[in-house]
């Protein structure tokens, strides 16, 4: 056990130098919520730290032109959660659905899809990059995740991760560096139309600097936490619970 802690401390100290150069960044900006053992864990930290240092100015991912868009946009994995609650909301056009925002925010609240659509929108034509190797370009319209959190009065100083739960039983944690990015949006539109069910209606997250499995579909709720410990298997998300990279920038 002591070996494990010392290794983790060693790994964590690697990016600290870089962290000093950036204001507003914490350990969570450079190191996954739970560092795996061995060389794989060391590589995880190197990959994430390198990415975050290279992206320290919060550069935008490449935005393409309309002619590059794939329409219809390909669907993959879950395209229609069988969950009864989801089916009811879908049959009602999500008019009675509410997005709860809870946890370490100034005041917990719920937003309807109509209220979300009234918030300042952002449209971005970006590549969806699947970790399997495929990629397709779509025009996503939605509201910045940061703006939605601001509707709940913003996060408290103890906040470290934003956790998104979905109707198909997935969840993922995102550190505040990713949340603060301009292109991190909750999308309700795709290619100029309402987000189709197969692509994640009513809302899907876009984190354009990470792979597809972090772009959760069928968003059900948002909560802000100080640690990913105790959520799922505690690795920070369902994908890393199953042994995939938590930081999916590669």
């Amino acid at each position, binding site marked *: 056990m002591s070996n494990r802690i010392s290794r983790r401390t060693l790994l964590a100290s690697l990016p600290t130098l870089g962290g000093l150069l950036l204001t507003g960044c914490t350990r969570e900006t450079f190191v996954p919520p739970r560092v795996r053992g061995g060389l794989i864990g*060391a590589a995880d930290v190197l990959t994430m730290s390198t990415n975050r240092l290279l992206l320290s100015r919060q550069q935008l991912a490449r935005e393409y032109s309309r002619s590059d868009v794939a329409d219809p946009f390909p669907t993959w994995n879950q395209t229609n959660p069988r969950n009864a609650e989801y089916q009811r909301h879908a049959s009602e056009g999500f008019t009675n659905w509410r997005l709860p925002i809870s946890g370490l925010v100034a005041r917990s609240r719920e937003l309807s899809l109509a209220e979300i659509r009234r918030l300042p929108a952002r449209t971005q034509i970006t590549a969806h990059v699947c970790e399997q190797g495929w990629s397709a370009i779509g025009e996503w319209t939605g509201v910045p995740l940061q703006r939605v959190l601001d509707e709940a009065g913003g996060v408290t100083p103890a906040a470290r991760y934003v956790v998104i739960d979905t109707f198909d039983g997935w969840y993922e944690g995102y550190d505040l560096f990713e949340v603060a990015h301009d292109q991190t949006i909750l999308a309700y539109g795709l290619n100029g139309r309402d987000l189709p069910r197969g692509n994640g209606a009513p809302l899907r997250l876009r984190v354009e600097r990470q792979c597809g499995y972090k772009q959760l579909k069928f968003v059900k709720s948002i909560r802000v936490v100080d640690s990913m410990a105790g959520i799922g298997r505690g690795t920070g998300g369902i994908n890393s619970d199953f042994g995939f990279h938590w930081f999916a920038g590669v």
Partner: protein
Amino acid sequence: MGVDSPSISESRGPAADVSNPVHSYNVRICHWINLISCVYLLWSGVHIFLDFPELYWGHTGYRGYPAAFRLADWGLSWEDAGAIGDRRWGRNYHFTAAWVFLINGLVYVGWNLYSKHFRNRMVPGRDEWTVANVRAELRDSVRWRSRRHTHDGAAAGASYGTLQKTSYLILIFVYVPLMILTGIAQSPGFTAAMPMLLDLFGGRQSARTLHTIGTVALVLFVVIHVLEIAAAGFLVKVRSMIAPGSE
């Protein structure tokens, strides 16, 4: 071990056992770490590819989009390939091996620039790049016979021929950087930081296709490399990469 402790192969004194010279510690250690990381990179890369066994050109590529290469056309269906390919294992080991490969490679290049290994032993001399010399090497190479002596007549356990030197330099300074760049050109994180990677290779899918072609090219290179070693006397060459020699 310091840079000024000469390996046997580099000493010209009469005491040197020129019949069984060895590479420097650095070259030997880096070679074997490199080999292990490359085996992992290749094997994990094959797994990643099998999990999505099609290649495309440009920025876009997904199942149903016009493909430049389909494994299914070559007899292995999508489902069969997917059943073999384990991308979770593949991705974890590919990126871990990539870091080992990169750090090892930087140590190798840094050390050999410092110790002048490249300048002294890997950059072909002007006298080596003569038509007669290259023609002679090509002739020997086609006949699977290595020239067992260098231009100064020393035995060649750990010394390189002109074409060999040139191909190693191209491998280290052209091929490897291109493989790293086509690799990270597929990454949404790295391409956000360096969008020119997308323009350099004509798109994310082009980069993936070039990365795969590069892998096949490397496998062919390794086959030729091993055959050439065999032609030069397999045991002598491999011993020069392992043993401290008959000191």
